[in-house]
């Protein structure tokens, strides 16, 4: 290589070295450490939460999610997303903003440790249940919808624990139906796009029409809590 070429390439390398690193614009949930926290401290911090999410995180209002028994890594991830201000406008944004990382971990392990109680809502009709179960177990190949159990587990409590990229995948079993429908609609409409898991669900939700979303949510909300 002649001298001018070497100098040119050297200068370009230096320019590259000085360039700033490209910051991640989303939360990567493909490598998630197990969340450790103080349950008692979380309980103390959770007093404000029960107004919407019910006693011990068992929300009675169908539009609010049940938090009891949910995976701590999923809960921590959601609180971080509210804190980042990237979720749709919600009271949660303001509530999560002052939380420290420690607060988030404590709240996550507290709700994960609570017992999930059965829903008191009347069960949906059998046809809706069957459609929802079929979607969950087989998906809808004609529309390109994958079976939900592939990621959320055969019993809808989430995948078997172990691999780090499974930790933030939530349990759906016994979750409130209206909340699930709203969540799927938000995924479909691109309102939830702040994490690798959001990107997965954005693609999935686009394959579901409204009746499918409702059938799926009805089926999942009808499932009794898993024995612990």
């Amino acid at each position, binding site marked *: 290589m002649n001298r001018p070429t070497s100098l040119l390439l050297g200068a370009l390398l230096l320019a*590259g070295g000085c360039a*700033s690193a490209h910051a991640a614009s989303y939360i990567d949930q493909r490598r998630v450490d197990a969340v450790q926290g103080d349950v008692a401290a979380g309980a103390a911090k959770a007093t404000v939460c029960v107004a919407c999410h019910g006693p011990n995180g068992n929300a009675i209002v169908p539009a609010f999610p049940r938090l009891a028994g949910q995976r701590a890594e999923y809960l921590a991830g959601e609180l971080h997303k509210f804190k980042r201000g990237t979720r749709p406008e919600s009271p949660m944004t303001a509530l999560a903003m002052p939380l420290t990382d420690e607060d988030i971990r404590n709240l996550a392990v507290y709700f994960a440790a609570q017992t999930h109680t059965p829903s008191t809502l009347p069960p949906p009709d059998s046809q809706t249940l069957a459609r929802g179960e079929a979607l969950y177990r087989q998906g809808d190949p004609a529309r390109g919808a994958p079976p939900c159990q592939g990621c959320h587990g055969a019993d809808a409590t989430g995948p078997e624990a172990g691999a780090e990229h499974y930790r933030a995948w939530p349990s759906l079993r016994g979750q409130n139906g209206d909340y699930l429908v709203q969540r799927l609609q938000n995924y479909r409409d691109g309102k939830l796009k702040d994490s690798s898991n959001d990107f997965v669900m954005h693609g999935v939700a686009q394959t579901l029409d409204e009746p499918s979303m409702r059938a799926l949510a009805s089926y999942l909300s009808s499932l009794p809590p898993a024995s612990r």
Partner: protein
Amino acid sequence: MNLLSASSRSSFPPRRALAAACAGVAAMACSSLAFADSGIGVDLWRGNKLDPTAGTRSETPDENGTTWLKPGQNRSPTGNLYLGPFTPPQPEQYGDWRGYGTLEVGVLMVPTGDQRNALWNRYADWKEGPILGLLDYTLERASDGTYANFRGSRISDDDEYYQATFGRAGAFKVQAFVRDMPNIVSGNAKPVWNGVGSNRLTLPSGLTPGGSTPAQIAAASAAAPERTLSVTREKQGLSYSMFLTPEWTAYANVTDEQRRGARPYGGSFFFPGLGGSMETVKPIDDSTINVNGGFRYAGAAWRMDFSYSGSFYRDANTRYTFESPFVMASPVPGALSAPVYQGQMSTEPDNDYHNLQATLTRKLPSLNGEVSLSAAAGRMQQDDTLIAPIDCRGVFGVGFGDLQLGPQNPLLGDCSQWNTPAALSRRSAKMRIDTSMVDARMVLNPTSQWTLRGNVKYDRQDYRTGDYLLYNPLTGQYGYIAENGSQPSIIPGEGFPVGRFTEVGNMRIRNIPLDIQTVDANLGADWKFDDKNTLGVTFGYNRYEPTHRERSEINDSSVKLTWINRSLDALTLRVNYTYLKQSGDRYDYDPYEEFVSASLPGYTPPAGGTPVITTSAMRKYDMSSFDQNKLDVMATLALRDDMTVSASARLDRKSYDARIGRQDYDTGSATLQWEWQPAATTNLSAFLGYDRSRLKMSNVNDALENGAGTDPSLGGPTYPYDAQWWLRDKQRNYYAGALFDHRIGRVRVDAGWNYTYSRGTDSYRYAGPDALAYPTTVPPGPGSGAFSPMVYRVNSFNLGVTIPIVERVSLRVFDYYERGRVDDWHYLGFDQSRYIGGMLYTDGGPQSYSNNVVGMLVNVKL
């Protein structure tokens, strides 16, 4: 396929066998330097040397990785890391359509170097100046899946490609392309002829056809300007496929490739000193049209494919002619040589090929497998107008006392009786080969632990030509005139056609149909006896039944054992061992009697008997019995999630049952590769490779100068042990390389190094001087020696930096350096003269070189 050449018979005069064999093996040693122009795989991928990846090099790896579902890169079933995907495009919306693409334009600068070197210019034409590195643009309409794409690159007039694709997902696809590919076959040619590139080569003033002195030939060669000989391939293609139903697809493809240019070629007027050898220039002007079409069915239980393929080769030239400057001079006292000087070479004949094939495959759900049956029938045919046996004027052959035709000069021929198609027994080739094939296959997985495999294939080639008799109805003679009439003009009677009542028994008078029937059967099973281990065994049996060969039946029996082990989580180990034994029926060292003049009705054997053509100890390597042992070991180790080391070793030993012919052929190789992808935007790899081959062969000269020996046995008077010689050919190749690709912030740096070292050596020993072409040049008794090694080394480095300028626009600056070093004793002294030892060469041979290219390309994401 050249049918005419397929029926030709190789018969080196024994005296020249050692020299020819050594030269041939040495040429193989440097096969990468040979002036091949194969163009293998040109339809599969359109790229160029500047960017063999055809555009993917300019893509940016997606730092988000392969999938949102899990971290890291995916691995292949054998444990190797897949490359990560590229950053998705940022399309522009145009109504229903969205469009995206890449435009890369810039300049190449070649500041110094050997730019005309043939090795440097192999399949590339890099010149200083502006280039279109890449234009790649895609339009998509999501509403119905319609898409269109254009991709092109232009380095020079002879180094460019353009491709356009249009289709709709699930409906149809049509694609068209044009591509020009250069190939410089000699960068330092010095042909002495006028008319290079045409089908008529004439000597310049200063040289007299058939009458030039060595000094005049040397002077003309020295004065000839050095020039480049090249062959350019221009290819166009069109393909179409469409879904008739969700299960049925119709498809059709047609391509047309034209080759234009010229390349060094042979041209012989017998031995140097008596006549002379020369390297002429062959014109290349041909086209090949390939067509392929059919219907495919893919259903739940059945798959079917019904197809036609055809190939049509046309050469604009039937032959080319050249003038020889050499004086004919017979060494036989009293013999006067005819002054022949006009040579001719036939070009490849026009060829038509048709093939119909049907394949049916049925799934067997109960056994978790499938069976398939294929049947094909094809035809290859050539019917070129045949060229006259010779292109001389006056007389050819030798006369005694004068060169007047008449009974006093029986070994003198009248050119006018041989330089016309009327001298042929028929006017056109009328060559035809019919092929047929039936192949039945089965794969069953009756349990999750067992896989059973089997196939039986029947293949047949039938020559439907009938006899072509080398017979001149004008003279009533049989056979052919050797070497443009020069051989019979120097050695009385050699290569001179014979009459019916002849004593010459070894003159070829008829074509040899090489019909062959093959049956190939394999039966195997794989047993996955636990989660970590799979064992396999395959028994193979092949039976070849050629006609008019040394054996009428050849049997191959083989057993192959395989073991796949995954006992360690990160390690995949594969081991294969194969034993193959080839045998056959009785070996007939001379199955060609019906094709030579000894089969003529009036043939009268000489007093001592008919001379033999070779020793009965000869075993041709494809007909010989042999034992073969092959061992392959491959290991892939995932050191970490993002790091892989793989290694392989291979040994292949063939031991032939031959005292004369190929005796041993051993090959082996080893590779080691390391790859690390710590992030989607970082990729490092390195590899080492080594392979070797060792070939051992033996031959024996006939000890009788006039070739009249009648005893074929090795050790007999015709082929005495003292005339036996042995050759060992050794080849060693070493490879190494490293790649680095990393993004620092928004700047991307890529670098690479590749190294190839090839070394070939040939050593020989002989039992006595009679084994050599020139026995008087060595003392009595056995001897040995070796040719100089042939060495080929290439080092190449590349370093590139891609800097973003504004959004969607970046600048790539790169440097590519390549250095080649060639040591080839075949071309020693060619820098001084191309006229050496009575042989006139055109090509100066492969040359060492070094070149440095700097390029600047602006990349715009459209």
